């Protein structure tokens, strides 16, 4: 009888100690390259913990980022990680909880890359997440892993008209061809390029014109990297400048600045934490020579 009681007690203790929580990890296949951006966008990573009734105990989230050959390049510093107790039913966590960057220790070249760029080198990676118990860090759930591909988005570079190109007014008044490089890597669904052309007025800097004028062209182009614009504008020479300044006298050409904004399927910028947050390419200027007449 004693043996039976001891055996039952042993089974109960074993069952309690190896009791595990059910978890599920959902991760975007091609998340943003800036790891800090994961924390502000909830759709990137979701970690679901299902707790059985009466089986709730404190846990720590252990996250590991591995290369495809299994080498661990970043892991949670368990000593600093937050201890929490999942709720009685389902607990849903996001990247800010699962992968808190302030507690992730990166190694070697990956650490350097994170420090300099906030990104990991472009490659395929595996993220594994597991719940562990505080103090002894024994597993409290199975490790769930998801593969993801990381590559920083390169915005288009404006190619034609190139910076400070002088266009012939007689040709430009019929058609101006714009070309740019595509967003790299290619996105699915294809990127929508928003092409904007702004007139630079006499007293304006090009950047001032871009940030304050209504665009003469505001066109969305899906997938393609060329657009032929029929300006439907008259490129008569601007009014003569009254000022005596030599700088103003040079303003005989009409000035324009153009840029591309790269948008995703929802119409949002394809990258939100790099540079200006608007996913706008570096704008450049082009000029239009009003007429063929040399003495004008």
């Amino acid at each position, binding site marked *: 009888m004693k043996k039976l009681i001891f055996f039952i007690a042993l089974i109960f203790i074993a069952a309690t100690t190896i009791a595990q929580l059910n978890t599920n990890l959902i991760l975007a296949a091609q998340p943003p*390259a800036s790891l*800090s951006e994961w*924390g*502000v966008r909830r759709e990137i990573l979701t970690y679901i913990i299902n707790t059985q009734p009466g089986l709730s105990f404190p846990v720590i989230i252990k996250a590991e980022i591995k290369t495809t050959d299994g080498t661990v390049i970043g892991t949670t510093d368990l000593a600093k990680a937050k201890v929490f107790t999942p709720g009685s039913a389902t607990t849903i966590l996001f990247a800010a909880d699962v992968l808190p*960057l*302030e507690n*992730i220790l990166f190694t070697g070249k990956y650490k350097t*890359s994170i*420090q300099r*760029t*906030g990104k990991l*080198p*472009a490659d395929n990676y595996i993220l594994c997440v597991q719940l562990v118990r505080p103090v002894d860090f024994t597993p409290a759930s199975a490790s769930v892993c998801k593969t993801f591909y990381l*590559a*920083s988005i*390169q*915005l288009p*570079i404006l190619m*034609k008209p*190139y910076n400070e190109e002088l266009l*012939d007014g*007689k*040709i430009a*008044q*019929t*058609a101006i061809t714009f070309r740019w*490089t*595509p967003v*790299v*890597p*290619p996105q699915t669904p294809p990127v929508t390029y928003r092409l*904007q052309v702004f007139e630079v007025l006499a*007293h304006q*800097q090009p*950047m*001032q014109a871009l*940030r*304050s*004028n*209504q*665009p003469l062209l*505001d066109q969305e182009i899906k997938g393609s*990297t060329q657009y032929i614009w029929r300006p*439907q*504008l*008259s490129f*008569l020479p601007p*009014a003569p400048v*009254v*000022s005596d300044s030599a700088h103003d006298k040079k303003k005989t050409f009409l000035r324009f600045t153009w840029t591309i904004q790269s948008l995703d399927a929802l119409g949002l910028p394809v990258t939100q*934490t*790099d*540079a*200006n947050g*608007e996913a*706008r*390419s570096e704008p450049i200027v082009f000029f239009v020579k009003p*007429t*063929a*007449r040399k003495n004008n």
Partner: protein
Amino acid sequence: MAIKNIIATVLFFLFFYAATAQEVKEKLNISGTAGISYEGYGLHRSPSGWLGYTPRRPWNQVRFNFSPTFKFGKNFSLPFNLNFAVKPTNFAGPYSGIIKQDFGQYITNPMNNFSVNPKYKWAELQLGTQYLKYSDLSTGDIGIFGAGIDLRPKTLRIKFFSGISQQGINYFAGPPTVTGAYKRRNWMFQLGTEEEGKYLFAVNFAKGKDVPTSSAPPPLTIRPQEGVVVSIVSDLYLEKGFYFKGEGAQSTFTKDIATPLTLILKGFRPFIEARTSTITDFAAQVAVGKKSKDFDIGLTTKYLGAGFQTVGYPYQQPDRLDMTLNTRFNAWKDRNKNYKMNVVASLGRRINNVNNTALKAKQFIGNLNWFTQFNDQWSLNVNYNNFGFQSASGINPFGIKNVSNDFGFNPTYNKSTTKMNHLFSFSYNYSKYDERDVITGLTTSNNTHTAVLTYVPTYFEKEISPDFSILYFYNDVPMAKIKLATFSSALSMPAAKKKLRLRGQLQYTLGKLNSFSSNNNLIASCNVDYKITKKLTWNTYLTTNYFKYGNEIIPNGANYLESTCRTGFQYSFSTKK
């Protein structure tokens, strides 16, 4: 804030004290320009309810400019620059979509400039909106409303400026959508030594920081940021036109101030603390070359690390290495020892992804412009432009490959008689753009041919100046062929005893897409410049554009008429006799 106000006030009074002490007795001279202009825009679309063409100018806009310079003697000047518009028309950047502005937003809106820069000898006080460029890698692209100094005693250079480059703007879903922005404070400082045309050595510091609580609701897609950049600039100009220019910079940038502090990453204390979104990277640029009257050559290299980011150049694209070789030379002298030939060429290579955080992309850029004046009658301009872009494409089977080639050929013939001059100019451009599909690997070619013939008669004894041109444009890409034919003529003439200058242009374009019926476009425009007095002019520009589609869109035959009227007075004044 109180300390800054005190410093600004003290500096301001110091300037005026210094100026008035010596110069009050000397003569005051006022010069500059003042102007007001109105722009009206109209758009009528048919059939009623069709919205296929959107307005591209504000319906009404009034702009003012007033730029007087007060000069007290030869050492003290007080230039004002006031340029402002009545209605906001921001479509890009932090003020995008704003309609109602408060006072702070109005004066910092990039469409308005309010500045005064009192200057006494080598000391300049900078107040109001300033577009200050300290260097290529530190700060220079944005206008900041604030106060600062620019001191240049002998060869020393001391500059400091502090202000606001954008105000907090609340997000509004619309319509129209207001993107929203955080208020951004900026500081910049330069200490250096310079002798113009000989050398420059300077250390630059620039900082920008967003105020996270400055907008409610905050922007949806933009995070509050903070950045610091430190750079060292060195320019050297040697004998015989040789020069060397170099700059090295380090930026520390926090992409999201709301992210937690960390000890794992590097900050730049006491200017910026490390957060989990903080990055620190480097940039450098070097230019060497020689400049002379008939020959220039220069090599420029620019490296921007993947994490190099500054608030002074918000649209700068990082993670690249650019190398450009530029040259310009004159050759082939005529009997009068004037050069007949001018060649301008450049070769460039850009590599993206220097830090391996992205996919490797390589670009080649080549430009050539070759002008030859054979004799008094004939000249020829030839230009060639090429760029190529290649990159892997991640999980797709084929890499990206885009190649563009443009070739232009432009002979001009000039013939003079005793009464007039005839100028015939012909221009032909061929453009080929190849794009590879990353899924199928197939390359599509986009070919464009453009030919223009222009005739410009110039009458020696008459005051009318007409010109005529005819253009043919053909673009061929799979599934789409565009043909355009344009006829245009312009006329320029004085009137009212040369007080009035009239210029007009009429342009008709017949367009055709594939086998659809033709579309038609007629543009009429004129400029009337009236010199009311020697110093006051009245400039008016009127244009109207009528476009009628064929059956390439639904509803068939849709059309629109847009008109623009821009008129304004410009006054130039000076008390100097």
